[in-house]
């Protein structure tokens, strides 16, 4: 059976998206991407700092991946739109992760401003993937505004705390027709697998990989977890039960019919 993930008209071979922030060394990035199998990679935009020599991060990205610049630093829709346009002009293509944050403690995304930014950018031909708080009504408005997917947070950015918003994400998966990609908060491969078992279309991971003792090995583990979780979702897990149900027949060997000792 075919199991294809198509976003913005592009078929993606992997359901793991990788962020490139927080790595101690850009040289790790191509190895992390390769080990993870990811085909979508997020980047950010900043002013050039003329006081410190800077490497060109793009030189470390392999051919054939889809760049997804984020709008980090934007505090409202207008700023996000501006950053997205600049990213396209800088050669990042037409995918954009909208990230609008004005809360500095929990870095919670502003769903209201995000909806406004989607309306503008989708109208300009961008493939728009909004980072969002998992709220069904907001997700619906984002899809109506032209979002190609929605990306609810599992826990605050960079917290490695896992799927704290599990029930709310489950509702999005059930009710939203576009891909639901769990972005932010996933700290371990088991949590990525859990998101995929729930029916998430993909997960986006950055901090969990970048802050691991061995980022390349962790990237590989995430790639396997996402694949395993997706397969489990497709396989259809059996129902949970409060009581035991023997895996082996209880009759037909030492005793016939009844289960008590003679």
């Amino acid at each position: 059976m075919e199991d294809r993930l198509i976003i913005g008209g592009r078929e993606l071979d992997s359901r793991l998206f990788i962020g490139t922030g927080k790595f101690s060394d850009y040289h790790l990035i191509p190895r992390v991407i390769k080990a993870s199998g990811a085909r979508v990679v997020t980047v950010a935009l900043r002013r050039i700092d003329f006081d410190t020599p800077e490497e060109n991060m793009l030189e470390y990205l392999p051919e054939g991946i889809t760049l997804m610049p984020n709008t980090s630093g934007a505090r409202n829709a207008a700023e996000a739109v501006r950053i997205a346009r600049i990213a396209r002009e800088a050669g990042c293509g037409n995918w954009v992760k909208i990230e609008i944050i004005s809360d500095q403690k929990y870095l919670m995304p502003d769903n209201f401003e995000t909806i406004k930014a989607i309306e503008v950018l989708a109208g300009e031909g961008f493939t728009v993937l909004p980072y969002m708080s998992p709220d069904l009504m907001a997700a619906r408005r984002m899809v109506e505004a032209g979002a190609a997917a929605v990306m609810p947070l599992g826990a605050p950015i960079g917290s490695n705390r896992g799927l704290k918003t599990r029930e709310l994400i489950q509702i999005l998966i059930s009710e939203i027709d576009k891909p639901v990609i769990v972005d932010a908060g996933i700290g371990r491969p088991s949590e990525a697998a859990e998101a995929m078992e729930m029916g998430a279309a993909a997960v986006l991971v950055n901090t969990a990989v970048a802050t691991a003792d061995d980022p390349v090995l962790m990237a590989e583990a995430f790639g396997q977890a996402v694949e395993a979780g997706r397969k489990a979702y497709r396989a259809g897990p059996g129902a949970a039960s409060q009581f035991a149900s023997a895996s082996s027949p209880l009759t037909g060997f030492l005793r016939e019919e009844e289960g008590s000792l003679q």
Partner: protein
Amino acid sequence: MQIKVNDRAVEVPESCTLEQVLLSGKLAKKPVAIILNQAVVHREQWGNHKLSPGDSLEIIRIIGGG
């Protein structure tokens, strides 16, 4: 004449183009974006867009991000 590049005052020759500013910083071929007085300038225009005194440039690059 004086212009601003990323909020810093910089002295450049009269009629200097955007591309010449980038070349002086070894940035001409890098994947960067240029914002001149709040408006993005398309890459094709870098070679013939002449700067005026007091112009404010922002030069943006791509970095790692999540």
